[in-house]
Structure formats: C-alpha cells, structure tokens
C-alpha cells in the first residue's frame, strides 16, 4: 500500500518535469539607445577650363556656342534634392568703358548634360535638375550654351552663375 501511494505521487510529478514542447521566454532585459540623423545636402561646383568664350569672327556668330559638360556638380545628400541656377545680375558686366551694359544674362542657358531643353538663366532661380536615384553621392555635368551677342559693342564681358541645391 505504501508503494502504491509513492507511485501515485511520483507519476504527476515526473510529467511536470518534462520540457515544454515550445520554448518560452524566461527573461527579457533591454538597453536603451538613441540615433540622430539630420538631413544633409552638400554640393561642390567646378568648371572645365577658364570659362572664357571668344566670338572673334563672323563664323562664331553663325550659331550658339555649346560647351558640353562645362560645369561639374558633385553632390552629397541624405535626401532627394534639386539644383537651381541663377545669374548674379540681369546683364553682363562690361570689362571696359567701350562695352555696353545691355547684354542680357539670358544669352546663357544651361541644361543637364545631354538631356532636355536649355534653360535661359535669369536672376530668378530656376530648377536645372533633380535627383533621379536614391544614391547619397552623385556626380553630374551641366552643358552651357551661349547665344551670339548680336548688335553689341565688342569688349570683354563677364557674368557669374550661381548654383543652389536644396532638399525637394
């Protein structure tokens, strides 16, 4: 009778000691962290050559002068971006007293290299291009076109173009 009691008590106990068919989470501990990622947009602009364009004979005036890939842009950005261009002034600056201050800035136009129509520059910023991939680093070329300055006094003229980048 004593052994029967012992067996009756042991059987349920042994079944409790079996491993559970599915493992259970026994303990969880956590450690906190923090991450700070602001938006970054950075652009470097470089130019091929000196930037001098000469109209020296009649043949030069027969068609616009196109400077392919004349401006290079290197862009680092963590977010989608767009690049704008504007001229620093509405007219070219004459380099001497014999020149005129009436040559408009929109003789110059720009486009993303090899694609799309040329965009005449003005003192109002205009979008030249925007990001086409999700890559943080990219390089792009800008074609520059200069229309012949008809009916203008011969001289040296200069103008500054300004490129801007901003998040889309």
């Amino acid at each position: 009778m004593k052994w029967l009691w012992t067996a009756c008590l042991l059987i349920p106990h042994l079944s409790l000691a079996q491993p559970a068919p599915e493992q259970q989470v026994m303990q969880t501990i956590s450690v906190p962290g923090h991450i700070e990622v602001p938006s970054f947009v950075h652009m470097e602009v470089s130019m091929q050559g000196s930037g001098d364009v000469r109209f020296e004979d009649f043949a030069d005036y027969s068609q616009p002068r196109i400077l392919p890939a004349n401006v290079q842009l290197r862009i680092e950005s963590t977010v989608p971006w767009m690049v704008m261009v504007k001229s620093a002034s509405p007219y070219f600056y004459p380099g001497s007293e014999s020149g005129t201050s009436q040559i408009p800035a929109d003789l110059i136009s720009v486009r993303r290299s090899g694609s799309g129509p040329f965009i005449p520059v003005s003192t109002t910023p205009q979008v030249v291009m925007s990001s086409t991939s999700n890559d943080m680093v990219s390089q792009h070329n800008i074609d520059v076109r200069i229309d012949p300055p008809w009916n203008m006094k011969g001289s040296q003229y200069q103008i500054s173009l300004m490129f801007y980048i901003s998040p889309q």
Partner: protein
Amino acid sequence: MKAIQFIPLILLLACPSQAQTGGSIDMRLLRPLYFQVHNARELMQGQIIEQAVELRVRSGSGTGQVYASLSPDVRFPPELARNLMLRLHHTNAPASMVIRREMPLSVKPELVVSQSAEQSRMGEYIYVFDVILKPVHQFVSSGNAGFSINFSTHSL
C-alpha cells in the same frame, strides 16, 4: 514511519521546474548607445560603439538560447532599421557556443547564444558586444529617435 517516506516527495513537488531551468542573464551598458551623424560622409562610413554592451549568461542545467531583438520607436528612420547590428567583441565562452560573430538587429529576435545542457553546467559566460551602425549609401529619412536592444532567454 509513514511521515518519513513522504518528506522527499513533498520536496520534489515543491520545485518541479528547477531540474530544467534556473539560468538568467544580466546586461550592462558599458558605453552610451548614442549615434550622432554630422554629415553624409559619416553615414557612408558607418559608426561603431566598441564594447558597448556586456551580457552575462548564467546557465541553468538545461539547454538554452539567448535572442537579441531591436525595438525602434516610431520616429526611427525606417531605412536604418536593418543597419544596426551587434558584433561580438570578446567572450569567455567556447567557440561552439558562439552562433555568429556579427548579427543584424531586427524586430524579429535573432539567436545570439545557444548552449547545450552539458555546456550549461559550466557556469557563467560573458559576451561583450560592439554595436554598429552599418554604412548607408542611399537616402535616409532624417530622425531623432530612440531604440532599445532586447535580450531574451529561452529555457536557459
């Protein structure tokens, strides 16, 4: 005479699960887990907080596993959620207990430590991890967010 025979049975019934478990983990943050990015280049290079987390696994007598998972808060940049990872810096555990030297952190628990019942009898093991923000080369959402790394034991 009857009372003497029942004493061992009562003791066994009082602690039925101790035969299989009894292990525990402790975690210590050795360095603050603070990733601060100052420019795009830092994101492209990635960041490492070396020897950031120490995990002490005290074994029970059964087989057991430790899993790691990530709990990002709602402002956490989603593109970075798969870029956080743990890298084992050093441990006193035998190589057979080290599942992977590097493991990505995700909301789904990933196995970090696995030990057999035999290994479990050996005592306490220490695992020290680096926490890594892997290099990112694609656009990311800006964010200022918290997260937590969770370690959970399964039947140690």
